[in-house]
């Protein structure tokens, strides 16, 4: 086995599988090429043609939503993840986390082989046989001593085959399988149990609604199924024949979701329940309720608007207005249960929201109990606490940890870490050296989703398949296989499992699904189809539910807060790091957080008045103190948060977990008390008050946009709903021109971006990084504004006469592919020019780096390679062979994914036709969950993009400069009351 110098990867082995390994790493420099080897296959794998990509359907497991993905594979390397259009969940789109899964796969800090410290001080690498033997011995030893009940398998919510396998295994060993989800949404289940007698989390149909009222449900970020609900939202909120749906968001801070709302109602933390009931009462009072409030009139009458208003800090007129709209604009929907607002009264809040929906007659309309989420089956927080206590009592002898990081995600007060120390034998299946795995005695690194077989059922209607897209990068093994082979070695378990590989087990369990599926033909075809489609999807009839009378007698209280501090403390889950899982992926670290545009760190959001009071400014450091702990972090002054509230993002502050995550920012979970929601026993995230004090430290707040307003440049434009209804004439911009307009024969590639749909989630940015080999540069470089992103999401706070007083606008800005590009004429060497298909070509290898093009770029979208940026191996295996890797001294920018255009044209040429509309998608368009980006041929008058670019709302950014951009933006629609 020849070891590779770098990283000790068995490069040769890898090459044996992946075959021709040239290309990729070449750079645009004029130096003579080194001696290149071409390594042929020993045995050519079926259906792989070097140079031609293969696509495999699989399932994303970065969060519980379980989106379908398609993984692009070149020469045996997974190089790009895209949403699977077949999947009913994300139907083609993906989020930043999903895109970045590749950097999990190729993460240089992965556990590269089994490790154990059984007969050594520190963790030592060992072979799989040894490792499994070690585990087998432990189990046997335990069984010998008769203490069989003391095995616990702690995993995240793994439904499907692996889940079953683990259950069976634990059953056989007499152990327990506990499924721990950081965000388990117990209150949702409990509330539904109370209100409808169904302990399940339903699916919602936001797209059907005309009026959406969210009580802190951050569905654009992390709530239940972000991609799906963002897509639904953009359908509901997008412009359809001159009308748009209305979205009102109630939360103490203006989260990214709230920033996309037409109204952000800043409510006193923990009083959402009261507000919901107040609104319901208002509806019933005004007789707008179809069912007249049923048996709840009595209950509701206790919540007169004036009282509610003063309890919740929400003005009366606002309450009555919401009530009016909510009951009049049908169908409407109220949702809740965002993690950041889960207080000690979370269940009550959600019951109240159910009541509101019931009163407005939405149950069954836009809430679907026919198809419920499988996260419902996750174990509750109480099970975790009891586990911890039994660990502390030494009742646990073997603890298996699978794909969870409780040391990081559980509140310090629970002392999980200490309890773990009391467990004699801890086995981690994690592929990453996270805080929990560090403390394990035996590490059996699992394959990542992209390397292993499996399945996952995020909801009843979906059985999603996971298939290996490439052979393991490191010496890792899928946990299913480990369990089976270990079971094979343990005497008592002999013959327990007929299968020897997890693949067999998977197929066997799918035989049952196949049996359940009607008219699926024989199993093999069913299996093939499912693999192609990424799983088996069935339609379930929606179930009608009725509110149980018990609700009427329910007591509704305000949330309780511990701690003497004067500020409510919000720890909110991040759409970049989820519960901290994403923090080891440079793409996510470098993706600017939508509101602050901050990168590579954490911060605390402080209201301007509060900041003045505390005497801190943007960039200063605050010390936040709660009874449980102290964190010191940087101030971001933000008008979108209540003066009596401070908030910090969850996900940073790792003490381990690889070079990109380690010692970066702070972990707000350390601040949280061990409070639970009274009714469901779920963890209460919003339950503490903290005190804040300025500390004598100040740094540059590293972000990608230093301005908050547009300075009258009219870049992100908006149109009021009334104007839109009146119908404005789309001003085709025609500056007097010195030269005749340019002619195009077949193609003129163009793009349309709908600002009404764009939610600023940044998945396009990450997709662009992945597709175009864009270098991540790290915090120090971003601090010097040297980030290389080809797309930036511009974020502007606009004066507004809505309740919040401001409105947030997002605008994805990339190269506008100008027809009259300022960058082109100034280049002395034709390194950038206008190509016959309307692209603004950038020829890296011709560039000498005068940088005049960037100076003259009206939109400042060109990025310069100040250094030759490196990808630590094996991150560079992800690089797209179809895109040049740029070297120092070269300008670069968005190319409209010219490699995809050329590929499509190549295929079209094989069939002797032109490229047809929608035949291919550019990376950002493909990723966008909101379907805000449309790309296509402007010469084809029928194409979607040409239709949209002649839309009434269409405009070019900075049109007065007459650059004649190829990108048309569609104005955002403001619904502010006149």
């Amino acid at each position, binding site marked *: 086995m020849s070891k590779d110098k770098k990283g000790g990867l068995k490069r040769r082995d890898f090459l044996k599988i992946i075959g021709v390994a040239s290309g990729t790493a070449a750079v645009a420099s004029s130096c003579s090429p080194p001696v290149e080897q071409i390594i042929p296959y020993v045995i050519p794998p079926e259906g792989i043609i070097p140079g031609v990509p293969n696509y495999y359907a699989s399932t994303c497991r970065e969060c519980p939503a379980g989106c379908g993905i398609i993984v692009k594979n070149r020469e045996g390397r997974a190089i790009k993840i895209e949403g699977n259009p077949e999947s009913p969940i994300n139907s083609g789109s993906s989020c930043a986390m999903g895109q970045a899964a590749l950097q999990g796969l190729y993460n240089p800090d992965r556990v590269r082989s089994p490790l154990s410290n059984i007969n050594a001080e520190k963790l030592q690498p060992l072979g799989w046989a040894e490792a499994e033997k070690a585990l087998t011995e432990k189990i046997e030893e335990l069984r010998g001593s008769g203490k069989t009940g003391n095995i616990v398998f702690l995993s995240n919510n793994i439904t499907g085959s692996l889940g079953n396998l683990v259950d069976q295994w634990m059953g056989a060993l007499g152990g327990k399988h506990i499924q721990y989800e950081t965000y388990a949404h117990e209150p949702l289940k409990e509330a539904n149990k109370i209100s409808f007698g169904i302990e399940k989390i339903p699916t919602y149909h936001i797209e059907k609604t005309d009026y959406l009222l969210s009580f802190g449900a951050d569905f654009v970020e992390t709530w239940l199924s972000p991609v799906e609900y963002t897509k639904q939202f953009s359908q509901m909120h997008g412009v359809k024949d001159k009308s748009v749906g209305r979205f009102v968001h109630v939360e103490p801070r203006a989260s990214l979701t709230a920033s996309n709302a037409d109204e952000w109602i800043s409510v006193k933390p923990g009083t959402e329940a009261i507000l919901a009931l107040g609104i319901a009462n208002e509806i019933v009072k005004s007789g707008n309720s179809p069912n007249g409030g049923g048996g709840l009139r009595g209950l509701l009458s206790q919540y007169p608007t004036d009282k509610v208003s003063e309890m919740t800090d929400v003005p009366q007129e606002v309450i009555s207005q919401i009530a009016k709209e909510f009951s009049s604009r049908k169908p409407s929907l109220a949702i809740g249960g965002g993690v950041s607002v889960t207080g000690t009264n979370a269940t009550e809040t959600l019951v109240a929201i159910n009541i509101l929906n019931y009163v407005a007659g939405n149950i069954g309309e836009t809430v679907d109990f026919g198809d419920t989420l499988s996260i419902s089956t996750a174990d509750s927080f109480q099970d975790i606490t009891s586990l911890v206590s039994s660990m502390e009592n030494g009742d646990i002898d073997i603890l298996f940890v699978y794909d969870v990081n409780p040391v990081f995600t559980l509140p310090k007060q629970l002392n999980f870490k200490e309890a773990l120390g009391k467990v004699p034998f801890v086995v981690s299946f994690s592929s990453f050296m996270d805080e929990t795995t560090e403390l394990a005695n035996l590490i059996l690194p699992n394959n990542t989703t992209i390397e292993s077989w499996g399945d996952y059922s995020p909801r009843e209607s979906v059985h999603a398949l996971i298939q290996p897209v490439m052979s393991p990068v490191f010496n890792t093994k899928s946990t299913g296989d480990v369990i089976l082979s270990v079971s094979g070695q343990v005497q008592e378990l002999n013959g327990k499992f007929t299968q020897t590989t997890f693949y067999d087990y998977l197929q066997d369990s799918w035989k049952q699904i196949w049996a359940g599926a009607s008219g699926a033909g024989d199993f093999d075809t069913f299996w093939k189809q499912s693999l192609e489609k990424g799983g088996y999807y069935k339609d379930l009839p929606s179930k009608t539910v009725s509110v149980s009378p018990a609700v009427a007698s329910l007591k509704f209280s305000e949330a309780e807060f511990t701690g003497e501090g004067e500020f409510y403390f919000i720890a909110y889950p991040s759409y970049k790091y989820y519960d901290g899982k994403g923090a080891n992926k440079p793409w996510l670290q470098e993706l600017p957080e939508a509101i602050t545009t901050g990168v590579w760190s954490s911060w605390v959001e402080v209201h301007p008045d509060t900041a003045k009071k505390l005497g801190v400014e943007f960039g200063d450091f605050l010390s936040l103190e709660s009874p449980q702990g102290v964190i010191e972090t940087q101030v971001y002054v933000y008008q979108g948060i209540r003066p009596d509230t401070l908030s910090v993002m969850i996900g940073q502050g790792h003490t381990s977990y690889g070079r990109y995550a380690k010692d970066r920012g702070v972990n707000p979970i350390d601040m949280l008390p061990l409070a639970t929601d009274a009714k469901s026993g779920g963890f209460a995230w919003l339950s503490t008050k903290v005190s804040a004090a300025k500390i004598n430290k100040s740094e540059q707040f590293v972000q990608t946009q230093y301005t908050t307003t547009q300075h009258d440049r009219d870049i992100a434009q908006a149109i009021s709903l009334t104007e839109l209804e009146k119908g404005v004439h789309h001003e085709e911009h025609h500056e007097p021109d010195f030269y005749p307009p340019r002619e195009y024969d077949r193609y003129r590639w163009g793009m349309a971006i709908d600002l009404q749909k764009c939610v600023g989630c940044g998945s396009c940015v990450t997709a662009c990084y992945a597709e175009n080999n864009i270098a991540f540069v790290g915090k120090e470089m971003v601090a010097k504004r040297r980030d290389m992103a080809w797309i930036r999401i511009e974020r502007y706070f606009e004066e507004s006469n809505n309740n919040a007083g401001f409105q947030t606008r997002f605008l994805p800005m990339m190269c506008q592919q100008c027809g009259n590009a300022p960058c082109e004429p100034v280049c002395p060497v034709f390194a950038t020019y206008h190509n016959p298909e309307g692209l603004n070509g950038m020829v890296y290898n011709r*560039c000498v780096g005068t940088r005049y093009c960037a100076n003259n770029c009206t939109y400042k979208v060109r990025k310069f390679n100040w250094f030759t940026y490196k990808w630590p191996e094996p991150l560079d295996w992800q690089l797209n062979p179809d895109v040049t890797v740029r070297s120092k001294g070269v300008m670069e920018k968005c190319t409209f994914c010219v490699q995809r255009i050329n590929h499509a044209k190549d295929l079209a040429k094989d069939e002797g036709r032109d490229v047809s509309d929608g035949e291919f998608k550019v990376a950002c368009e493909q990723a966008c969950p909101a379907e805000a980006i449309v790309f296509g041929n402007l010469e084809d008058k029928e194409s979607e993009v040409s239709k949209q670019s002649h839309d009434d709302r269409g405009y070019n950014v900075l049109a007065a400069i007459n650059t004649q951009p190829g990108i048309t933006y569609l104005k955002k629609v403001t619904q502010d009351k006149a």
Partner: protein
Amino acid sequence: MSEQNTLTYARVNDDIIRMLDKPTFKWWALFLPTLLFVGFGLFCFIYQVYTGLGVAGYRHPVFWGVYITDFVFWVGIAHSGTLISAILFLFRANFRMSIYRIAEGMTVFAVLTAGLFPIIHLGRPWNFYWLFPYPNQRELWVNFKSPLLWDVFAVSTYLTVSSVFFFIGLIPDIAAVRDRVKEVPRKILYSVLSLGWKGSNWEWLHYTRAYLFFAAFATPLVLSVHSVVSWDFAMSNLPGWHTTIFAPYFVAGAIFSGLGMVITLTVPIRKIFHLEDYITLDNYDGMAKLIMLTSGIVGYAYGIEFFMAWYSGSPAEWGQFYYRAVGEYALFYWIMVVCNVVIPLPLWFKSVRRNIKALFIISIFINIGMWFERFNIIVISLSRGFDPAAWGIYTPSWVEIGITVGSFAWFFMFFLIFLKTLPAVSIAEMKEILPVPKKEAKTS
């Protein structure tokens, strides 16, 4: 011309050729440090090429900084040299006679320095030759529509023409030196350089003609070159760059800074080599008057820029100039205004114009002010473009400062060598303004 009456042809030769005597300790004390700094600048450049341009302070969106500032600064310096030697020659302004050689030397060396920066600032300097239209296997030419290419042509033309002009002017004087020096090596050197000049009426006939034509060429050239340099900016659409007044504004600025530099250089030379009889107060007076004029033009440009920005009604334009006056770079802006507009004001008084010390000090401030003018135009404009999302601040790094210092050293290195090798004051032309020796004049 009271002092000059004491001058005779012989004395002119003596005095001026004496300047070429063996370098003194003083000279070495000046020369060696320049070598040192040139070395450091070179090191910085190599380091930059090796590591990447990131070692400079550049950052999005400020893609040009100190290097281009230096480039424009040095080109500017170059200009007054040609102005004095060519334009004033055409105007037959006699006060040029004694200083034009120094000014021309300055021109040549300044262009030599300026020419380095476009290459230094490249992202891939090893490909700089791609900017020239040479036949290559790619069958690819250059983009003649790019202002940068105009620069390539303008600057290289300027360098060639000004050095030829410089050399032509030198021929008779070199001959004079040749006829003086005894040691063989220098004798040979000067013989070769003098091209066997004998001062016959034939030679003078063609010489004067040719010189006239050179002057006639150099004049439009000097105007065009700095106009082209200004178009590097004016041709863009960036607020703060995209204005029509740039060409005259830059030319005036160039002459302004150039004259400043001439004074800065001549004052010490005059003192050290005792050229009081040659470089007279009248000469300085004349230059000071020119400085007054150009300073006025520059000041006017500063003012009118603001008016135009306001009058344009474009938020980008006005935003830019408002930012210049009060933004992060306001200090630099006001340094510029004070140095270039306020400090030269005393020159309105004759007493100041004829006071060497005062002139010297003012000239130093002018140099500083004009460097900052270029810095402001380039950096401030870039840091605030059209799109607020892409605004950013630039601060030079030690590498850039090192190379800038190196460039000054590089310039002075050449200048010091020049002082010791070539007659720094034109012998022949000094004689032209002396009264012609006539027998009658003597006898009567």
